[in-house]
């Protein structure tokens, strides 16, 4: 069964409808890539799924549990923190906490969560170990005690990925993780995400990197003007699109007209 079911999500910002009924499913261990031109609603969709934004209507089911259902009278605010913890989020501009070192950035949230538990002392060492291991996996063993401003964009983004992984989310979301990076730094971040995909981390990746999406994703969604236009395995959507709008988008992309 799908780990995540998103049903008919609508989102309006003061009158203008940005998402016009988006539905999809995500299988556990799969990577889903969302592509589409600027302003098509990719970020908004991601923010609706991981509870940074309240959808105007629709429903979200995670592991069989309804997290959001606009037709039921459940409160969006209720258990918001717990619901968000199902998701990890990697932002376009990293959003690392500048006053903490790389290691502290990764440890902060697990530490705060563990503080409420009785065996906090014994857990503390474990949290640190786990954080160090994550940073090591990101290739940042030598950079753990650096502050964000002392790191390159690519390194910062890898710390951000480690930070999101530290809470062991069910689904890891990326919003254009490489678009704020210099071209020569995108590779190191994409490599890390590729490794995560090989280890079957469940992921939703909004990206403009078509080659990367085709290689790494199990499924690809093409969005335009707030709807899913085309969906399928990467080879069919990216190499053999059937819809006119997808074709246009990909042609413009190949001609280098997409930022």
């Amino acid at each position: 069964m799908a780990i995540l079911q998103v049903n008919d999500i609508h989102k309006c910002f003061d009158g203008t409808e940005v998402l016009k009924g988006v539905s999809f499913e995500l299988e556990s261990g799969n990577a889903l890539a969302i592509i589409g031109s600027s302003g098509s609603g990719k970020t908004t969709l991601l923010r609706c799924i991981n509870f940074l934004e309240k959808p105007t209507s629709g429903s979200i089911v995670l592991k069989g549990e309804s997290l959001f259902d606009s037709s039921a009278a459940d409160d969006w605010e209720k258990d918001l923190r717990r619901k968000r913890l199902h998701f990890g989020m990697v932002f376009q501009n990293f959003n690392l906490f500048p006053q903490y070192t790389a290691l502290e950035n990764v440890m902060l949230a697990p530490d705060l969560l563990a503080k409420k538990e009785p065996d906090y002392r014994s857990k503390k060492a474990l949290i640190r170990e786990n954080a160090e291991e994550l940073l090591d996996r990101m290739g940042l063993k030598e950079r753990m005690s650096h502050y964000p401003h002392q790191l390159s964009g690519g390194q910062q983004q890898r710390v951000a990925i480690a930070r999101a992984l530290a809470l062991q989310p069910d689904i890891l979301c990326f919003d254009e993780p490489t678009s704020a990076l210099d071209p020569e730094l995108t590779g190191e971040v994409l490599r890390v995400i590729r490794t995560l995909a090989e280890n079957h981390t469940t992921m939703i990746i909004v990206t403009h990197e078509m080659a990367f999406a085709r290689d790494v994703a199990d499924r690809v969604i093409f969005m335009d003007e707030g709807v899913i236009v085309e969906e399928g395995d990467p080879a069919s959507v990216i190499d053999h699109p059937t819809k006119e709008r997808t074709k246009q988008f990909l042609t413009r992309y190949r001609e280098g007209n997409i930022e």
Partner: protein
Amino acid sequence: MFWTVTLTLLKGLLTTFEIFAYTLLIALPLGLVFAFASMSRFAPLRGLMNVIIWIIRGTPLMLQLIIIFYGPGLWLGHNIWSGDEAGRILATVVAFSFNYACYFSVIFRGGIQGVPKGQREAGQMLGMTKSQIFFKVTLLQMVKRVVPPMSNEIITLVKDTSLARIIAAYELTFSGYSFMKSDGITWPLFYTGLFYLLFVGILTLIFGKIEKKLDYFQ
């Protein structure tokens, strides 16, 4: 003569320091309240606060001081400030606190709004509570943004205390000036300047230390 002058100036310095310290003590928290009011989601409160801030920042502090000190007496028929030194200092502190709270509120607001929205969102996605986000994530970033403009404002306050002379509070400048009037000598004025420089110098040092402390991140 030198000792008489020094003693008088020290007394004046005490008054200056009193005005300075009480004003800070009141204006800092009040400024934070004003900042929140000026960002309130309740439009009438926000509007009112911004008009008040606009008026206070748009008119001279000296004018405000005169109105606060003499106004009540003329409107109510009796003075609410006692005529002695304490009353004059109190009136000064009231006027200064209100004025400086308005200036501080703008600085606080800048500090609060200057922290990128993404910082809060990152905290939310990491399951942090509102208070954890405030204390562990945004507070220090706000402090870092607020310290440099705040130190400028506070140093201006030291010099603004001399405005209290206008309602005859015996602060530092008044003390130095009194010798020129009574003895026709000017050197106490320069001596007075030295006191201010020392006061401001110490503050500059302290703020420099704080800024340096916060230098480790960007």
